[in-house]
């Protein structure tokens, strides 16, 4: 029975429903005490749902042990020295606990986000099978709307945004030469919010799935089924998770660098993460605000989006996109960092234009705040906002172009090692440029008005988010797989995965451009028979794309057991994470490193990024 008292998932089993039910009862008691004529009316289930879920989240966090150290600390109990019992993974069970080790949290993040990715992908397969033929067959329209909305929501909020937090969690403290993140407990807390967000989104199927898409525009969202409330709560939870992680990354990057690690000796992934985290911190609360407003409208009957009562529906779109456009860069900037790492190592050349790449990340992050209204050209927005937004949106192509140019400069005349990671990195450049170019087209107001809400837009953002972000995620996972598991991943299966993904994803998303130009609207369960042919091709290719992911999952599982031992540095990389054993020691560096040069000095004979002071010297120091 002791297992139900210690901080773990077993304790969550009773604390979560306990806190949740207590809060609901309390709310009903307050309602009675306040003298409402009826204890139960039409609005109450909605309110109970919201209260139950929000307090359930807190209950879960208490159960898993997020506050076990903080509560005594807050009220001033005597400090206990940390015994590090929550740090590091000694068995598989440690991955299911509140664990403060950034490497464990990184793995937890990536696995959780991949579960979300596969689920979101399966939803796409289901509605693609409906869309394969004109007419209604496989699922009804309500189910289609639900699956379509879930697909977008899961992919964005529980896969693409957090997966980079996961990769960054594993890699960045190692790259900086730090023993852990700056706030390890906060780090664990922000991870455990993520599976909750996923469960909240998925459980909305039980009460009527939300149907307003991932954007949740009112009045769809304020008048939709009960699941919409869960969408709003889930966004808050996922958002809290990413803000906490971003604060952690920023403080870690500012304060936890090894001696000699000046800002311009940091690997570019760290720079990318710095820019991303700044974006997350500044932008994410806007979606929280937008979802608070729609939730208040639903649950408490406020009038934010009721035009007859002075409500302002268009303002939702402004607030929402003020986050959600920067969110696109949140989902792609860390990927840019991953690509910079891989291209330099795999072409054995110094990165071309280190500072240009570093500053262009910051440039994208800054410019990213000035472009949000390009999502609203067709919304009846203020006319004078259109042209400035069009120009600033097109300007985003400049820093992005600098990056692409620098990457091409990096691989130019290099000695290319075409590993799977490198295949994904170069494949990323190809597909991302397509997505980027259609982005510039869409920025132009007349063109956007022509293709707005058609499959052209769907094609564009899938080229950016699949052809861009997901490719970088895979590149990163293949690249750091030996570091995480200590074994090499099977290259043959990796190449099979790459080529099925590359070919089938282009077959899925390229024809969508043409469908969009011909006028096929997005987010519809049925379409005119004239669009039939390409839709068949798209659906078939989508199934191949899905099957390709199975190769990846199989490869990851099998290689962890049977792969060739990797050794500490299979790619002869210079950055710090490769200078320790694979998998890294529990506390990262037995000897604190001293950074003496840039991270990309490939091809310079004898060049070093960091040195480790002689063990004997280090020992003497600790004894003295």
């Amino acid at each position: 029975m002791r297992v139900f008292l210690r901080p773990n998932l077993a304790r969550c089993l009773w604390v979560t429903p306990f806190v949740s039910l207590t809060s609901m009862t309390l709310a009903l008691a307050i309602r009675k005490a306040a003298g409402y004529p009826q204890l139960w009316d039409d609005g109450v289930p909605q309110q109970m749902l919201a209260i139950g879920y929000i307090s359930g989240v807190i209950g879960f966090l208490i159960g898993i042990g997020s506050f076990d150290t903080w509560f005594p600390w807050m009220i001033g109990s005597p400090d206990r020295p940390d015994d590090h019992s929550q740090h590091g993974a000694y068995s598989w069970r440690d991955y299911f606990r509140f664990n403060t080790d950034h490497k464990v949290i990184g793995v937890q993040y990536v696995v959780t986000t991949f579960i979300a990715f596969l689920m979101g992908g399966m939803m796409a397969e289901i509605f693609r099978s409906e869309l394969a033929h004109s007419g209604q067959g496989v699922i009804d329209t309500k189910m289609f709307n639900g699956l379509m909305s879930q697909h977008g929501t899961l992919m964005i909020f529980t896969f693409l945004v957090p997966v980079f937090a996961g990769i960054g969690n594993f890699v960045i403290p190692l790259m900086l030469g730090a023993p852990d993140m700056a706030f390890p407990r906060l780090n664990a807390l922000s991870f455990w919010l993520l599976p909750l967000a996923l469960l909240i989104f998925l459980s909305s199927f039980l009460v009527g799935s939300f149907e307003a898409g991932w954007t949740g525009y009112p009045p769809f969202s304020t008048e939709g089924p009960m699941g919409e409330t869960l969408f709003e709560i889930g966004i808050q939870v996922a958002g809290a998770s990413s803000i906490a992680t971003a604060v952690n990354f920023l403080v870690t990057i500012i304060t936890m660098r090894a001696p000699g690690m000046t800002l311009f000796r940091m690997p570019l992934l760290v720079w990318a993460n710095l820019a991303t985290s700044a974006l997350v911190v500044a932008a994410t609360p806007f979606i929280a605000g937008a979802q608070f407003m729609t939730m208040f409208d639903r649950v408490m009957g406020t009038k934010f989006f009721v035009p007859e009562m002075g409500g302002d529906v268009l303002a939702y779109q402004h607030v929402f996109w003020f986050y959600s456009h920067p969110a696109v860069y949140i989902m792609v900037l860390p990927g840019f960092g991953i690509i910079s790492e891989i291209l330099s190592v795999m072409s054995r050349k110094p990165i071309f234009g280190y500072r240009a790449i570093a500053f262009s990340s910051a440039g994208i992050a800054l410019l990213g705040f000035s472009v949000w209204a390009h999502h609203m050209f067709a919304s009846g927005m203020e006319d004078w906002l259109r042209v400035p937004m069009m120009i600033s949106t097109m300007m985003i192509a400049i820093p992005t172009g600098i990056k692409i140019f620098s990457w091409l400069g990096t691989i130019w005349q290099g000695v290319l090692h075409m590993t799977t990671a490198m295949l994904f990195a170069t494949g990323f450049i190809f597909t991302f440029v397509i997505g980027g170019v259609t982005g510039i087209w869409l920025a132009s107001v007349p063109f956007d008005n022509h293709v707005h809400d058609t499959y052209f837009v769907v094609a564009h953002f899938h080229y950016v988010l699949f052809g861009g972000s997901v490719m970088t995620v895979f590149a990163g996972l293949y690249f750091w797989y030996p570091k995480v598991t200590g074994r090499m991943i099977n290259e043959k299966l990796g190449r099979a995965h790459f080529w099925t993904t590359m070919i089938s994803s282009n077959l899925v998303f390229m024809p969508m451009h043409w469908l969009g130009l011909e006028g096929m609207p997005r987010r519809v369960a049925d379409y005119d028979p004239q669009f039939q042919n390409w839709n068949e091709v798209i659906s078939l290719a989508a199934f191949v794309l899905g099957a390709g992911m199975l190769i990846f999952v199989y490869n990851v599982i099998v290689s962890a057991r049977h792969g060739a031992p990797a050794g500490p540095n299979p790619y002869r990389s210079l950055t710090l994470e490769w200078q320790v054993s694979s998998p890294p020691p529990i506390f990262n560096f037995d000897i604190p490193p001293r950074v003496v040069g840039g991270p990309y000095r490939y091809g310079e004979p004898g060049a070093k990024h960091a040195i480790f002071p002689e063990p004997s010297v280090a020992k003497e120091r600790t004894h003295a």
Partner: protein
Amino acid sequence: MSGHDAAVGHDHHGPAAHTYQPYPVRLGIVPLGLVIFLTSEISLFGAFFLWYGHARGLNNLAWPAIGYEIPADSTSINTAILIASSFTCELAFLSLMKNRRRGLFWWLVASFVLGAIFLGLQAREYHDIGFLPTTNAQGSIFFSLTGLHGAHVFIGLTLLLFCIIRVARGHFTPKRYTGLLVTSIYWHFVDIVWILLYTLVYLLPDKVA
């Protein structure tokens, strides 16, 4: 060992890493984290202010709603009280620096009491104001903005309460004061947001009027 070291955020380093020194930051690692977090708080208020600005500035929302009034005059007292509590909080900090324990304790109590009075006055204003969040969009945004701020005052009061308890237990020294620093930064933040909120929501006249 009491309080929290300002230089090392957290003693979660491995056996080998005990010699590890974070880069020195003037603020200390925990207050730095707080300041970064507060930028995201500004954005959270910003989201509601963006709605408010759009509705009033571009959607011509009447402010206040026709037939209702926003009590700018009586709320000026609340404003004064909250600003005063920021000063008392800073006086508590000065007392700590000069190692005057009683001053530290009582100035903190004074800040707490002033903050609590502010919340009480806000609650009374809610009761007397004559409209509800559900009455119209003006009511929704008024209660959301002031309520969001009120929630932050409540969190600030909780932090102050923790500080008071810890001071009573003999915590904080002129060299170890992270918990107090964090609380006072947060409390000043809540104060500054209120000044902005009071100006924009209570004082800004309707352009029609």
